[in-house]
């Protein structure tokens, strides 16, 4: 199993979600992160200017079976790419095991919907 961590633009989230659904990735988690990077923005607060590059991003975390990793990555790239600086990154992290809390099932089976994919 792999954990796919994709850091994308907030505005691309809906498209990425749809792209993932198309390749049958139906379950994932996401949350807001801020990225620090080089595309600095000058900000002012009550007359104090401060340089910052905090950019709001969404981090999508998907645990997939090994065989699905590449198609997941491809789907994300396709949907999230604009070609301009700030498109974000994808990281692939090894996962040792997965457990479905509801049933206690472990391993690959915990990742997919038994009824559907068999």
């Amino acid at each position, binding site marked *: 199993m792999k954990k796919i961590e994709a850091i994308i633009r907030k*505005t691309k989230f809906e498209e990425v979600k749809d792209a993932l659904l198309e390749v049958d990735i139906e379950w994932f988690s996401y949350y807001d992160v801020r990225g620090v990077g080089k595309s600095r923005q000058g900000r*002012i607060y009550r007359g104090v200017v401060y340089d910052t590059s905090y950019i709001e991003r969404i981090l999508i975390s998907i645990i997939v079976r090994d065989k699905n990793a590449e198609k997941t990555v491809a789907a994300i790239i396709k949907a999230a790419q604009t070609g*301009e600086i700030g498109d974000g990154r994808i990281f692939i992290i090894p996962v040792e095991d997965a457990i479905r809390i509801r049933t206690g099932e472990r391993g690959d089976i915990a990742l997919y919907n038994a009824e559907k994919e068999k």
Partner: protein
Amino acid sequence: MAEVLDTIMIASDSISSVVPVVTTDSIASSLTVATDTIGELIFSLDTVWVLLASALVFFMQAGFALVEAGFTRSKNTVNILMKNLIDFAFGSLAFFLIGFGIMFGVKNGFIGSFIPYSDGIWSGGIPSEAFLIFQTVFAATAATIVSGAMAERTHFVSYVIFSVVISAIIYPISGHWIWGGGWLSTLAEPFHDFAGSTAVHSLGGWIGLTGAIMLGPRLGKFKGKKVNAIPGHNLTIGALGVFILWLGWFGFNPGSQLAASGTANAVAISHIFLTTNLAAAAGTVSALALSWIKYGKPSLSITLNGTLAGLVAVTAGCDVVSGWGAVAIGLLAGILLIFSLRLIENVFKIDDPVGAASVHGITGAFGTLAVGLFSQSTGLFYGFGTQALLSQFIGVVSVAAWGLSAGFILFFILKKTVGLRVDKRVEEEGLDIYEHGEAAYN
């Protein structure tokens, strides 16, 4: 004032106590003083009424700011707040310098005079400065409405310019027609817009609609045939805004009587207070009910808009409709609103983030026409024929034409010069950071 009165008291005390000295003349002069004092009291009570109403209407600026901020995304909150703050600031100055003269200056049917406010322009039963203040808070409302329809994508510098133009010129001109002695107020059956369903709300709605069309929809709003919801970031703030607006309307409508003294005025402002409240309540209820039926769930965002629809609609006729009439107008406004929101968004594919064109434009127009039906003194439903309805129709159409065309010209010039819409990147990342260098939430 107390001293003056002391004099009368002493005078009249002397009259009654020192019996022999009582002459008809001394009584007559005491009576004159008393009568003058009564005159001053009438003047004072009316002034107090109008000033407190002005304070309530001023507070509507906060209501609009919160409604617009709550119903849009957090990345544009600083921008929305800024707009609502500065349109009132610039509007106050612009109306003082230019707008007031245009609206209430020397009367020709189409436009007043281009002079800064001065004492002589207007006179009536309250100090002219009190009248100026009351009119100022009204003028700023029209500009504020526009900012809602054009939210989340308009260049800030453009906004500053057009909000000044609206308060200084566009609003005062049509305002002159209606309230400044202009042509609409001299129709055979004068156009009746008591507190501004058309003069303020519809006008703002139409200009906003023009702006929304010329800007185009926000990125991601329409995708092919699909209409995407872009939910507001904070409905608590939005709901508070609506409560504040409702409160402010108790200044907006009853204050427009511009007087409170005398039985007739006291009864009138009480009645206006009641019709305003009943229409708001009815608009809330019908929007709730219809949203429940139509979408299966009672939706807060729609119900809040229904409240505003009821308030906007009753504004034109709050003085002449009965309590029951107000309920009817409110109920219809809440229903009309929902269809209007759908029509503008789904059929015409116009993106009006807070629904300003529907809430203020459409229901404002409806409410103005409703005067021709529900007015107890001129309305069709009370057997007075279609004369009034026709006048109302003329007023609604001419102000709409004015708002749409003046808006078009204004936005067209801005588009060709400073630019109306922000860059794609700015819109995506939020106007707050790129246009203001600040985030609302940290």
